């Protein structure tokens, strides 16, 4: 079963609007990461937030983490057409002595000019 699950599955907005994507997970984590995937490409790391952090910023990206609710959100402000992509959260899980990432199914974001 997936550790992280994104919501919504798909989001369609106009350029300039803000986009918010949510991620819920099931077990305790050390950190949570967000990745972006453009169509036909590999994933690109956006931001990592540790379990003792509540908010982190990177450019137009703002990530929050609420460990009590086991949830995270990714906010993209002033969206651009180039932000059109799928966004995945990834949480860590210890298995076989190795702390591996488990990815959710992703949110497909479409930003219209």
């Amino acid at each position, binding site marked *: 079963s997936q550790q992280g699950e994104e919501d919504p599955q798909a989001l369609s907005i106009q350029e300039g609007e803000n986009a918010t994507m949510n991620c819920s997970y099931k077990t305790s984590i050390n950190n949570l990461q967000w990745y972006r995937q453009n169509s036909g490409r*590999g*994933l690109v*790391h956006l931001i990592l937030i540790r379990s003792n952090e509540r908010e982190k910023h990177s450019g137009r990206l703002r990530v929050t983490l609420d460990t009590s609710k086991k949830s995270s959100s990714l906010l993209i402000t002033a969206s651009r057409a180039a932000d059109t992509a799928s966004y995945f959260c990834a949480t860590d899980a210890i298995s076989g002595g*190795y*702390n*591996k990432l488990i*990815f959710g199914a992703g949110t497909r974001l479409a930003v219209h000019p």
Partner: protein
Amino acid sequence: DAGITQSPRYKITETGRQVTLMCHQTWSHSYMFWYRQDLGHGLRLIYYSAAADITDKGEVPDGYVVSRSKTENFPLTLESATRSQTSVYFCASSRGGGASTDTQYFGPGTRLTVL
């Protein structure tokens, strides 16, 4: 700076054939990973490797074999391809792992179709 590359980018094969997907990274990262991506499932870990000659199973290892004789290469072999292995395969690498999850860097993917 080549980063992480995968070959081939596209592959069509037939059921029962052996197929090897190649992955090469130029960063000397210790950890390497193979994922498959299917609609509705996100990315699922097939195998990972913590260093040369050290590999371990991920979430969906059945039907796959890996090896890592050199740090920079991590080939994935489908010994007898099945239609259910039709997917997009991503290789990734990271500096570290173990107790603290590190950022992973992904290759461009290989789209495999098994007829």
